[in-house]
């Protein structure tokens, strides 16, 4: 198999001294066998695969995208700064053209971390992709970014963060939320009023195999990407769709992951979940690295690989075809849906109940966005958590219009401080983050 070789950056940080708890899936051992396989294959000896040490993200990088309560340092450990820093290193190497693409094979993951962070949910504290993307925009100018999240769990955190951003296309393929944590990610979740159609959810039924994943890639994701024309494609490379994963029910394989990567051709891939640490991760990761580097991956397979035994049923194939058609039709009619949804409203309000399963916290949130045709619209958030913290935040989006900025600033200035423990102001374009206690 002759392929065009690419220069691929690898940021490998297995954090061999960090775990959520000793027997937690997110523990020291998670990338041990992946490291063994990557080393034994000698991948780092390839001229076109270059390993980089991760940098450290800073609290400013976090505050550019998150509202951490009470502050960033209270919700993270060093490991989070390194995994976000690893993603940032990957981005720097790609944007500075040192490499053609890069894979941040780092932990802990981030895609369940939402805009407001009261604690950890779904093993995630901070959203490492979002931190990376805003770092890119800050340092390399405004970019249209597409995130294709292939983790088996719906990336509800990434969706929340980019819900109102028309310049970030968030596409998630995951196991149907009726059968798996976090229970969201249905096609009707389609983006906020100013960004309809830039959130796309593709919930696949349990037992979907390579065929189903590649079908939605070819018939739904790639066509939408063609229209969106992103400057950068990010793969949130979760690996828990694998047929051996202990906490999910899908039938994806190492070959499938590699082929998906080859077709999607992401500029940056960032590891998310994936907990079949011995039977799947070593092979998936070798497959992804080889695919990104344009090296023959046809011999990468799991020891117990048997395509017949994990083949999806005809029913599933039909279901997925119908699903893909439905989502594509919905996406094509995004403009007309907006008219119906928004009407004459000037603001739209959205109430959320958020569960932090990892830290056992509950949050009630009211999010308001200004309807705007010129930018993503400024957002205010009123959030109360079971920790006792009550906060208010004003967020001015990137590439904001003057009206959204001045109105947002006014609201921040006039909010009654006595009602809240903390009030936050975040302005992406000016890279301003302020807290009032």
């Amino acid at each position: 198999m002759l392929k065009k070789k690419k220069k691929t950056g690898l940021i490998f940080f297995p954090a061999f001294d960090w775990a959520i708890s000793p027997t937690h899936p997110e523990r020291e051992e998670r990338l041990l066998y992946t490291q063994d396989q990557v080393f034994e294959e000698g991948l780092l000896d390839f001229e076109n695969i270059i390993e980089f040490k991760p940098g450290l993200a800073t609290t400013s990088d976090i505050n550019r995208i998150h509202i951490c309560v009470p502050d960033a340092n209270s919700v993270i450990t060093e490991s989070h700064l390194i995994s976000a820093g690893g993603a940032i290193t990957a981005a720097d190497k790609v944007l500075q053209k040192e490499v053609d693409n890069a894979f941040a094979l780092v932990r802990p993951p981030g895609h369940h971390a939402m805009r407001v962070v009261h604690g950890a949910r779904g093993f995630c504290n901070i959203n490492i992709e979002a931190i990376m993307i805003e770092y890119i925009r800050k340092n390399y100018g405004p970019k249209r970014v597409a995130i294709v999240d292939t983790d088996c769990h719906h990336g509800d955190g990434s969706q929340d963060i980019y819900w109102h951003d028309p310049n970030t296309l968030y596409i998630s393929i995951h196991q149907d939320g009726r059968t798996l944590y976090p229970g969201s990610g249905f096609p009707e979740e389609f983006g906020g009023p100013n960004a309809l159609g830039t959130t796309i959810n593709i919930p696949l039924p349990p037992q979907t195999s390579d065929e189903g994943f590649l079908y939605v890639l070819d018939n739904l994701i790639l066509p939408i990407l063609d229209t969106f024309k992103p400057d950068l494609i990010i793969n949130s490379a979760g690996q828990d769709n694998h047929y051996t994963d202990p906490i999910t029910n899908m039938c994806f394989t190492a070959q499938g992951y590699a082929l998906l990567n080859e077709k999607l051709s992401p500029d940056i891939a960032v590891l998310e979940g994936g907990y079949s640490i011995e039977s799947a991760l070593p092979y998936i990761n070798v497959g992804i690295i080889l695919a990104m580097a344009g090296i023959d991956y046809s011999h990468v397979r799991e020891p117990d690989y048997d395509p017949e035994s994990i083949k999806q049923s005809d029913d599933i194939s039909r279901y997925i075809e119908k699903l893909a058609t439905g989502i594509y039709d919905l996406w094509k009619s995004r403009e007309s849906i907006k008219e119906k949804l928004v009407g004459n409203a000037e603001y739209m309000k959205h109430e959320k109940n958020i569960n932090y399963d990892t830290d056992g916290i509950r949050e009630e949130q009211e999010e308001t966005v200004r309807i705007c045709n010129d930018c993503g619209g400024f957002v205010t958030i009123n959030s109360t958590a079971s920790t006792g913290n009550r906060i208010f935040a004003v967020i001015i989006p990137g590439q904001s219009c003057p009206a959204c900025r001045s109105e947002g600033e006014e609201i921040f200035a006039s909010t009654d401080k006595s009602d809240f423990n903390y009030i936050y102001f975040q302005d992406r374009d000016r890279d301003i983050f302020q807290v009032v206690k």
Partner: protein
Amino acid sequence: MILGIDVGGTHTDAALIENFKIKKKAKVLTNEISLMDSLLNVMGEIFRDEDSLDLKRIVLSTTISTNAIVQGKTERVGLILASGPGLPPSALKINNDTHFISGYVNHRGIEIAGIDHDEVSQICEHFKKEGIEHAGIVGKFSTRNLKQEIEVRDIINNNFKHISLGHRMSGHLNFPRRVSTTYLNAAISDLYTNFVKEISKFLGKSGPKLPIYILKADGGTLEIDKSVEYPAQTILSGPAASIMGILSLTDCRKDAIALDIGGTTTDIAIFADGIPLLEPLGVTIEGHKTLIRGLRTKSIGIGGDSRVKYESNSIVIGPERDGPAAAFGGPSPTPTDAMIVAGLTNIGDKEKATAAISPIARRSGRPVHEAAKMIFDLTCQKIATSVKEMIEEINNRPVYTIHELLEGKKLIPQVLNVVGGPAEPMAEHLGKLLECPAHIPEHAEVANAIGAALARTTTELTLLADTERKTMTIVEEGLQIPIPNVFSREDALKTCKEKLFERSLKMGAKKEDIDMETIEDQEFNMVRGFYTTGKNIRIKVQVKPGLITGLGKGQTIC
């Protein structure tokens, strides 16, 4: 007394050392056709008025293995690879006699597919028909379970003069490197074995039971009879000899830089707290990336005899060498000529040097003296830049724990040691550029021989214990043994150190020189479902490169 001999490409050096003082040194031209002849000549020089019977040991650093590989004087090797899933065979095939078999083990050392005996026998028959007498057997993850390599060897055992097994080469993970190391080991085994026989016969005459050692690429020594099993370890011992020489000639217990500035190239080495740094995995020779432990050196194409050109308004130095410096009758201007013109050294014919530099001065519109100074500055700058890059590379090496990332040691060199022809005129300026005091060791002209003479025996061992599978592997020793129900990381470390001690003695070490260091010490809980099912313990210990004991701390042999 100890005798160190370094057979280099051009010269063969010898140094006779008594009570850590240099008693005598000698330098003769290397006879490329006959290594024995070179040895005989240099020993003749050394022993002209000496009684050789006083010798306690002889250490040899030779180019025999390196030259065999570089000149392609190697044996044909049949390779049998159990490559399992991963890279395609096309990426692993290193010669036309590479054959792939179906068995393999996984990352934990669990046998996933068994060896097909018929398949192996057929390959063996094919090798015999082809007249192949040397074989290599390498399995993916054979360092985790060596059983399959042994199984294949037992099938083909009686059909070959020599068989090299992958797991014996190194405990490191890296299948392609294990393949090339095994290949090289088998390919030079005949030649090397004959060399050892000849040497033993030749030196045997000098005295009864004189211990003879061979210098390895990692700057350590190996008893000559033991070296027959690992001939590949003896490649690239020249640069190692030079680094060990500098170590013995300087008070170098800090982070330091060592430069060997030659005619064509400059070799850079780095010491961390006085210990020469090793290549992370192994040395590279003739495009073969290997698992052969070796000192970390970087060779750049700039030396005293590099050709200096003036091209598109700038001065270009090296990497070509057209011959000696113009001052010594060479065809092109060189940094050496520039140093002569700039008055930094008094060697050679200054008129010839000036004549060679003049055209460059004219074209760059400068007086000849100024042009010479520029060439000198640029030469120093280029070397300094490469040194800085190498240090940065070392400081940026990837680490895999939060602790190492946040607390890891950073190299900050305190001393610059310079040897080689142009050391005298260049050292001070290089020191300024690198912001550390420069030092030129005495006896540097025979540094290699001294380094060989005083190097200690080095070796390393890798232990992997899997308490769920209740087995422990110490792969370099070919050990795979059951472990008791209770087996801790402390037990593993203790076992590994005991075995390393035994191995060091076998390799020829003196007890007092076995300075052990733990280079990897990790323990992982293996959790399946929500229960801890065992521990995965990984230990690597080594006897690090260094000098034999006898020298006090901070003491040099001069």
